[in-house]
C-alpha cells in the first residue's frame, strides 16, 4: 500500500479508493463481474423501454385499453390487472426468500440455504408459468399477435411480447442458475470456497425483480 493513497478524505479520498492497491473495494471478482453485467443489462432494458415509449408516441392508431385486456374474471365481473398483481406479488416474495437464503448461506446453514433457494426458484417458475398462461390467453382468446391485434395499435402486441418475453427469458435463466447453485450448495461444493455465490445469484435475482417492477409500471399502468 503506498503511503499517498491511505489518508485522504472527500473527493481525493474517493479517487484514492478507486485507484487503491490491487483492487477497488473488497469485492470478490465474481460479485464485481455480476454488478457490471447488471449495469450493462440495465442498458438493454432501458433501450427496450425507451423504444416502447417512442413507438407508443409515433403509432397512428389508439393504444389499446390495457386494464381491460389484462382483466381476468373468477366467475364474476372481470377484475382489472389481477393476474399481473399476483405475478408481481410472487416475484417480490421470491426476492424475500432469496435474501433469507443469502443470510443462511453466510451462516453456513446449508440445509436452509438449499431449501430457500429452491423456494425462490419455485416462485420464479410459477411466475413463468403464469406468464405463459397470460400469453396463451392473449394469443388464443383475445387474438393479440406481434404484428397486430383487434384493439388498436399493432405496436401494443409487438412491444408486449418482446419486452415480457425478454424478461421471461431472464427469469427462466435465473431459475436454472438458482437450481444449479442450490445443488452445489447441498453437495458441499462451496464449503471451502465460501458462500458468496449465493449472494451473487441473489443480485441477479433481485435485478430481475426490479426490472419487472419497471415493466409493470411502464406497461400495465401507464
Amino acid at each position, binding site marked *: 500500500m503506498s503511503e*499517498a493513497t491511505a489518508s485522504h478524505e472527500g473527493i481525493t479520498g474517493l479517487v484514492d479508493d478507486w485507484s487503491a492497491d490491487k483492487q477497488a473495494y473488497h469485492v470478490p*471478482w465474481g460479485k464485481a463481474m455480476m454488478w457490471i453485467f447488471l*449495469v450493462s443489462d440495465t442498458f438493454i432494458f432501458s*433501450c427496450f423501454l425507451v423504444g416502447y415509449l417512442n413507438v407508443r408516441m409515433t403509432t397512428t392508431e389508439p393504444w389499446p385499453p390495457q386494464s381491460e385486456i389484462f382483466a381476468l374474471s373468477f366467475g364474476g365481473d372481470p377484475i382489472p390487472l389481477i393476474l399481473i398483481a399476483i405475478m408481481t406479488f410472487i416475484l417480490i416474495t421470491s426476492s424475500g426468500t432469496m435474501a433469507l437464503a443469502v443470510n443462511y448461506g453466510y451462516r453456513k446453514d446449508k440445509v436452509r440455504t438449499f431449501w430457500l433457494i429452491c423456494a425462490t426458484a419455485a416462485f420464479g417458475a410459477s411466475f413463468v408459468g403464469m406468464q405463459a398462461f397470460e400469453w396463451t390467453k392473449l394469443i388464443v382468446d383475445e387474438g393479440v399477435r406481434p404484428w397486430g391485434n383487434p384493439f388498436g395499435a399493432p405496436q401494443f402486441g409487438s412491444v408486449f411480447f418482446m419486452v415480457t418475453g425478454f424478461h421471461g427469458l431472464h427469469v427462466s435463466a435465473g431459475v436454472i442458475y438458482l437450481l444449479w447453485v442450490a445443488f452445489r450448495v447441498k453437495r458441499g461444493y462451496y464449503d471451502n470456497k465460501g458462500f458468496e455465490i449465493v449472494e451473487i445469484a441473489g443480485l441477479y435475482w433481485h435485478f430481475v425483480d426490479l426490472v419487472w417492477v419497471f415493466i409493470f409500471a411502464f406497461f400495465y399502468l401507464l
Partner: protein
Amino acid sequence: MAYVPLADRDHEMEMHHPKTWIGKWVFCQDHKVIAIQYGSIAIFTGLVGLILSLLFRMQLGFPEAADFIDPSFYYQAVTMHGMIMVIYLLTALFLGGFGNYLIPLMCGARDMVFPFMNMLSVWVFLVSVIILMASFFVTGGPTGGGWTLYPPQTTLAGTPGHDMGIVLMLISLAVFIVATTMGGLNYVVTVLQYRCRGLTMMRLPLSVWGIFVATILALFAFPALLVAAIMMLFDILLGTSFFMPALIESGAPLDHNGGSPILFQHLFWFFGHPEVYIVALPAFGLVSDVLSVHARKNIFGYRMMVWAIIAIGGLSFIVWAHHMYVSGMHPYFGFFFATTTLIIAVPTALKVYNWVLTLWEGDIRLNAPMYFAIGFIFTFIHGGLTGLFLGNVVIDLPLSDTYFVVAHFHMVMGVSPVLVVFAAIYHWYPKMSGRMYHEGMAKLHFWCTFLGTYAIYLPMHYLGFVGVPRRYYALGTTDFLPPSAQDLNTTITIAALFVGASQLLFLINIIWSLRNGPKADPNPWGAASLEWQTPDTPPVHGNWGESLPTVYRWAYDYSVPGAHEDFIPQNTPESEEPTVDEQHFDPDTDESMADV
C-alpha cells in the same frame, strides 16, 4: 470469512496446465493464446474487408475494367467493408486481441479472472464471423443497406440482401455482442481486482487504461445495438412495425404502419458514437506507451492522460445525434449536440499535446513502431480537425453524405487506429513470438501505408467539397461535377490498390519472422512496464513463474537521473533505484508536479 485479495491468494490457487494439443491450442484458456486467436480471426476478417474495398474502388476508378461489379454488388461490398472494418476487425482486435494479451501481463496477473468464459468469448466471436461470412453465400447475398443499416431502406425489396443478408447480419451482430460481453466483463474485472501488489490504478500503463475504459464503453453501448437488432429482426421476421412507418411499395401499401425509423437511428448511434471511441481509446493508450518507450521519456502528463481518457469515454455517450443532423431535429437539440461534440475536442486535443510534448527533447529511437506511432499523430490531428467541421450543424448539412465524411472518418478511425495496430504489433512482437521482425521491411511497410493512405484520403476531402456524394455506384454526368472528379477517383483507386498490396509486406514479415527472425532479447526496447519483465519470452502459461511480481513504481521511469540504466522496470524496489513516481509527490503541497 474475511476477504483476501486475489493477488494475495496466489499460493493457494493452483493452475491447471493443459496436456493435450487441443487443450493447449484450440480450447485453450490461456489469455495469450486466446489473444492470438482473437487477433488472427480479426485480421483474417479484416483482409476480406480490405479486398472488398479494393473491388468497389475498382468500380469507382475504372468502371469499364470492372464491369463484373454491378450496382447491387457495389453496395454489398461497401456495406460489408464498413461493418467488417469497424466491428470485426478493429473492435475485436483491440479488445479481444490486445486486451487479452496485455491486461494480465501489464497488471501482473496470471490470467484473466474467469479464463473459461474468456475462452468461450473467442469461440462465440468465431461463430459470429462465420454467420457474417455465410451471408455471402445465401440467396440475395449480403445486405447492401450501408453499414448503418437504416430501416426502412435495408429491409425493403430493391435493396440488395433485403431477405436473408440482413437477417444474417443482425444475428451475427447479436452473437458478436454476446462474445464482447463475455470478454469485456473479464477485462474490466481483471483490471479492477487482479492487479499485483503495489500496482495502483494510477500506476497502470496507459494501454491498460485505454482498453479498460473502452471495454466499459462497449459494455454500455452495445446493448443499444442489440436492442435495435432484435427489433429489426422482429420487423423482418414477425412483421412488426417498430421501425416501419406506413409505406407504399410498387403502388401497393405495405403491411406496416406507425413505426419510427428515427428510433433506429437513435439506438444505432447511441451505440455508434461510443463505438468510435471503443476503437480510439485503446489506440490512444497503446500509442502513448509506444511513444514513451521509444522516446526514452516518461509520458507527458500521465494523470491528465488518464482523466482525458475517462472524460472522453463519458462524453462519448452524449454526442450521438451529431450523426443525425440531416435527419432533422429541433434547433436546440442540434445546438446541444454540436456543443457536446466540440467539448470532446478539448480532452482529445490535450492528449495530442501530451504526445507531442512526450517527444519533445526525448532521446528518440526511430524504430519501426515509433514510425507508426509518429505517423498516427499526423493522421489523427488531420482527422480530428475535419471532425470539428462536421460537428457544427451548419457546416455538416452540405458536407453530410459526401466524400468529405468518408475522408474524415477514415483519417480518424480508419487510418489512425490501423497505424497504431501496426505500431503495437511490431512493438510487442518480440514478446509475443520471441523473435525479431525484419526492421527494414517494417519501415518500408510504414512508408507505403502512410504515404499511400494520404494519397487515398486527402483527395477525398476535395471531392467532398465539390459535392461528390458518398455511396454512389457511378458518378454519371452532372453539371456541378467537373470531369476531373473522375480522374481524381482513378488516382485514388491506384493509391488504394497500392496500399492494399503493400500490406503483404506486413503479412510476410510477421509470418516469415515467426520461424526465421533472429531470437529476440526479453526486453529489446528497454521498456519499464511489467509485461517485459516476465521470466520467459514468450511468457508461459501462468506468466510469472513461482511468485507474482511486486510493483514499486509507475510504468514510465525512463532516463531517470542517477539510475544505472535509462529505464527502471516497474518491479525494481525503491531501495535499489531512485524513484520519481508521481505517487510520491503529495498532490496537496506539490500541485505543479502532481499534475504534470
